């Protein structure tokens, strides 16, 4: 398979209410605007009520399945620390993991499990941890963390800034656009070390 035929597989995961759907809409839209075929898939309804959520985004020259085949994910974007580990079946050892170290205690647990970061580092050769506490002051408010992570993700994808900007314009209500674009740009800076 030539590089031009490459299908990019991005898996976004987190907890219901963190904004996975919007973040994945942005990515898929940016891919479409960059001239790629794009598909995405997620789940609505009961599973969204505080449960584990995910969105598969795929883009390339021609995409068939709306879901990522196992062990094929290029970049795993996780908005919650331990959720990162729930989806490793979709990953291979070279999958890049972008992890927001947000900790949301599952209702089934008394305390948050320890050793998660170490385990992520063991499984993923390439992992990037983002502390929400250091990011929030720069982007006004928590609701835009999802968009900030899209900004970070943008560093690793063949999608131009114009496509992202246009995707933001199309996916976000006009009066929230400026703040989101700022969050996106702050996120993008995190990838430039």
């Amino acid at each position, binding site marked *: 398979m030539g590089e031009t035929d490459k299908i990019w597989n991005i898996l976004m995961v987190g907890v219901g209410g963190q904004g996975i759907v919007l973040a994945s809409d942005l990515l898929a839209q940016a891919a479409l605007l960059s001239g790629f075929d794009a598909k995405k898939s997620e789940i609505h309804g009961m599973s969204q009520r505080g449960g584990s959520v995910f969105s598969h985004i795929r883009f390339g020259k021609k995409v068939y399945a709306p879901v990522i085949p196992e062990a094929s994910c290029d970049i795993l974007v996780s908005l919650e620390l331990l959720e990162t*580990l729930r989806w490793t079946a979709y990953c291979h050892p070279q999958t890049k993991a972008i992890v927001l170290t947000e900790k949301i205690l599952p209702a089934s647990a008394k305390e948050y499990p320890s050793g998660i970061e170490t385990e992520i580092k*063991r499984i993923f050769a390439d992992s990037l941890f983002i502390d929400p506490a250091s990011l929030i002051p720069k982007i006004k408010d928590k609701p835009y963390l999802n968009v900030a992570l899209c900004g970070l993700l943008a560093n690793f994808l063949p999608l131009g800034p114009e496509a992202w900007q246009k995707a933001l314009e199309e996916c976000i209500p006009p009066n929230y656009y400026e703040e989101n674009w700022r969050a996106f740009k702050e996120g993008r800076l995190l990838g430039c070390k």
Partner: protein
Amino acid sequence: MVFTTKLLSGNEAIALGAYEAGVKVGTGYPGTPSTQILEVLTTFQDVYTEWSVNEKVAFEVALGASLAGVRALVTMKHVGLNVAADPLFTSVYTGVKGGLVIVVADDPDMHSSQNEQDSRHYARAAKIPMLEPADSEEARLFTRLAFELSEQYDTPVLLRSTTRLSHGKSIVKVEDLKRPILPQPGFTRNIAKYVMVPSNARKRHQAVEERLLRLSLAIPSLPFNLIEKQPSQVGIITSGVCYQYVKEVFPEAAVLKLGLVWPLSLEQIRDFCNHYENLFCIEELDGFFETELKAFGFKVKGKELLPVTGEYSPSIIKERLAGYFQTKPVDHRSRQTQASLSELKLPPRPPALCPGCPHRTIFKILAELGLVVAGDIGCYTLGVMPPFSAMDTCVEMGGSIGLAQGIELAEGPEGQSKAVAVIGDSTFAHSGITGLINAAYNKRTSVIIVLDNNTTAMTGMQPNPFSGQRINGESTTAIDYRLLGQAVGLQDENIRLVDAARPEEVLTNLKELLATKRLSLLVVKGPCMIWKRKQKK
């Protein structure tokens, strides 16, 4: 034609296709994964939409509109079609005037459902054509064509979706369109066709059989099925999202992709199958095609290799079929290994009642009182989860009230008031009220607890007959619980409306009602937190 490309979900594309077909009336009852179709359709100009009280009524409204000459769309989830099955079967006899399309969205793997029934059986049982698109663009086109097929063959048409189609997004061509100019509507009396007394229905049944035969003979010339012949030993018969999975892993496979999943064309299937040594039916849920193809006499494999339960994926199809192909399946991985699974035991994160949900109160109380709780379908079904674990049954929409009555009967006088029903406002309107009437009529004594959060929350905040609002935000009448209770024959003191934010009052009222040993209605009011937040925006 001028068009732009857009990423649309299957549901958005179905709404667009219906609009493009000139649909005038859209009805339905919310149900994951079908809900967004009507929500999108309601944003278009010149289309009447409604959330009906339930799927049966939604179907009847759409059928009436069709018989009076306009194109009508009705949407529901798979279990909703059970509710609408009665008008479905006989509408096939009456036929249509304006095109009538019924969208039914199945939920393999039960992401948000109580069972994973395969709606294709309804097409065969009701003798009605069924289409199944494989991506959003097909969803748009098939919906548009479904209206034409409906009018051409004088039959309602089912359009089947699944969760991955409805909630997946793919590219759709959005044309700069003009809606078609359709004949002037109006109801024309046609007793022989529309009044299904036995003498008329016998003739109509003949017509239904003739129509289905005529359609099956026409299939090779219709645009729904796709034959991709290849120099291969393997031929695959598939439909819907499974087609995408097959193409993902076996792009070289010969495929008969059925867009019209019922009826089937023996001629077309024979023409395809005769070319290939190894034939496989790749279909989620039941072996529907497999059964039919075996009845035609073809040697096909299907469910002996792949499961009847859950969703399929590219991975499972690759794993189970790879041995039958000479070339290796496509592997998109940059490396041939899977990441190691975590050695840590992760705490599960199942869905749960929202932390700020006012209806957590009642489940805490029910758990403490140790009552038998007949539950129902909605967010509040999550009362079964820890820390409450306060639910003993959940079967179908509106079922709690009937089940509580049966439990009471079986337990005898000792069991009086031990079983309570817990049901949400939208579900109560959908099909709980008939259960309440039955309880009053037959002198049962349960306490029926309605959890009123002012919206249909689980499916994403749709108004309902108790919330005083229509689908488009327009205000309307709201059912008065007290008058309703009185009308079915409850005593006034057995009808209580309490505030979920006052747990002591909820508890006191529940205890008092249980002590009366008479049929009671306890309405616990507390608006959904998510709904409230959305109102502020």
